[in-house]
């Protein structure tokens, strides 16, 4: 086992029921510890299925996943304690206040009392939401909801954080706060696995990337090195070169 890897994926394969072609087709990769790993690909490439298998939400048809030195098949409960997930949807309760939402999430991770309250207020302050802690989420703007959604994923200070399109549909200011804080978390040792369609953001944020298409990893490495190897100017050009310009469903 490579002690420098946060996640090791070996020969991962997923074929859904009633499906002819696999969603993920025998992929293998390693995510270095304390990296920001971008899993990039067009719609329907297999990103969500891969992330779902890494979080333990769905079982692989074949292959092996190790998260933080733990085998996902046997240690899922322990893995759940060290990972955080920030889904693309605002998976929170609109009629609860920001504080009530975060308190519920914290309790679900076993956090409670003054420690939890302090953590909630600390995070709300970092993301500029301390003054709206007692306001209902339904009154928040899209950017504010995204920031709360992110706090809900990091409140319990996970070692590994999964982010699915964390900045989609938010204004520049909110996006800036989010990416800045992600850098901060990464500097403190958190491994971040990130999916996005925003190539510029991925290029600036990620230390490592893998491009996936039709369930297979077609390229993997440091963004700058890959751009150079493929004689392209940026990640977007590289992405189009590797995945083609054909429209996807």
């Amino acid at each position: 086992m490579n002690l420098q890897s946060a996640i090791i994926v070996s020969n991962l394969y997923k074929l859904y029921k009633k499906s002819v072609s696999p969603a993920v087709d025998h992929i293998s990769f390693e995510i270095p510890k304390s990296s920001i790993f971008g899993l990039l690909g067009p719609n329907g490439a297999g990103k969500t299925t891969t992330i779902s298998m890494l979080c333990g939400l769905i079982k692989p048809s074949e292959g092996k996943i190790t998260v933080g030195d733990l085998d996902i098949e046997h240690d899922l409960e322990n893995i759940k304690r060290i990972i955080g997930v920030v889904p693309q949807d605002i998976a929170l309760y609109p009629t609860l206040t920001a504080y009530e939402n975060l308190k519920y999430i914290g309790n679900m991770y076993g956090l409670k009392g003054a420690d939890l309250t302090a953590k909630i207020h600390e995070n709300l302050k970092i993301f500029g939401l301390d003054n709206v802690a007692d306001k209902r989420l339904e009154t928040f703007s899209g950017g504010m909801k995204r920031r709360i959604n992110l706090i809900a994923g990091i409140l319990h200070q996970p070692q590994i954080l999964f982010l699915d399109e964390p900045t989609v549909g938010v204004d520049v200011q909110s996006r800036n706060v989010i990416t800045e804080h992600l850098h901060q978390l990464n500097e403190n040792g958190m491994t971040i696995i990130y999916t996005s369609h925003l190539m510029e953001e991925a290029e600036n944020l990620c230390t490592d990337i893998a491009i996936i298409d039709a369930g297979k990893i077609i390229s993997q490495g440091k963004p700058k090195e890959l751009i150079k190897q493929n004689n392209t100017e940026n990640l977007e050009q590289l992405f189009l070169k590797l995945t083609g310009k054909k429209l996807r469903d």
Partner: protein
Amino acid sequence: MLRLLSTIQKELLLLMRDKGGLAIMFLMPMAMITIMAIIQDAPFRDYQELKIPLLLVNNDTGNVGKQIEVGLNESSIFEITNKKIVDENVKKAVKAGEYEIGIIIPDDATLSLNGNVQQFVSSKLSEVGLSEMPKELTNASELKIQILFTPDTKPSFKASILSSLKQSISKIETQFLLDFFTKELNKDNPEAVQSEKLKEFVTFNEINTLDTPQEALKLNSVQHNVPAWTIFGIFFIVISMAGSIIKERDDGSFLRIKTMPGSYLTVLIGKIIAYLFITIIQAFLMLLVGLYLLPLLGLPTLVIGSNILGIVIITVCTGLAATGFGVLVGTIFKTHQQASTFGAVSVVILAALGGIWVPVYVMPELVRTLSELSPLYWALTAFHKLFLNEVGVIAILSYSLKLFLFFVASLSISFFYNKSKE
């Protein structure tokens, strides 16, 4: 435990802030109880105190006609109209359904009965040599009372009415016989034997089977509608419960919860406990409506009996059945619209079958058989038994068990449905 308590708290907060949901859960059953109890008050009274309309044509001027009339009045089951009309018109009125029964007493009823009794008594006394048979009485005609029924009268009803009439006539006949025997025996010595009013040697004494000294309860509008619409309100929580499950699935909360440590079952139990708590509050408030609000509107006060433990058990089991059904609907249907439509329609159908709208005993036999499959029927029957019959906990255990098994079955189907979708 922290996850469980936190989920209960979260669900209660969500429920309390859902104004529309609260209106459906509390105001709707409260309004239904009040409106239906008022609307059904008169029909329930009519049904309970129904009298059979009877047209009596008493052509007799003597005692027999009068005594038959008194006997019919004393039975308290007839609404008697006295008329002096010809036989043909009696037939027309009964045939047209104006009266359920028509009775025509002939003008020679007293004379005829007297003659027959005299003939019988004289014949018996002459057989033993105590009297001579008077020659003028040998041809006394038989007393014939005409009785008419509407064409659609059920044979069993006809038989019971005829039996009741025969009993009355028989009593009059016996009294006449006794009087005449006395008279014959006293011919030579008028002071020897006194004629007496005929005694009843066998009487029926109706015993109140309730422990309380109150008058035996009848299923009136309040006794029916309060538990009925309380149960309906409890089951309407299916829509909120299913909606909550679908919403969590749609907005990703369900997946977020599944990435957290611990079993999803804990979260589901927390949700069920929160909704169960709401159903218990619902039931409590609806009983208060029956106890305090409806009497203010001129309706009878709800009688809940004395078995509080039984009421708690059946309320909890009804709440569990409703929340379990909510989980099932929320699991199977993909959208909130589908779930709310199916949830509402299914609860209305189960309510109709279960006797919520109208009592099961007025339904056709086929529907009565189907009723026994409705969880709302199990709950309503148990409430009626507790309120009207004052039964113990044992008597409602079978209904409680059925409701609990319905809850378990709903959760099991949901579990296996989810498994099959993975």
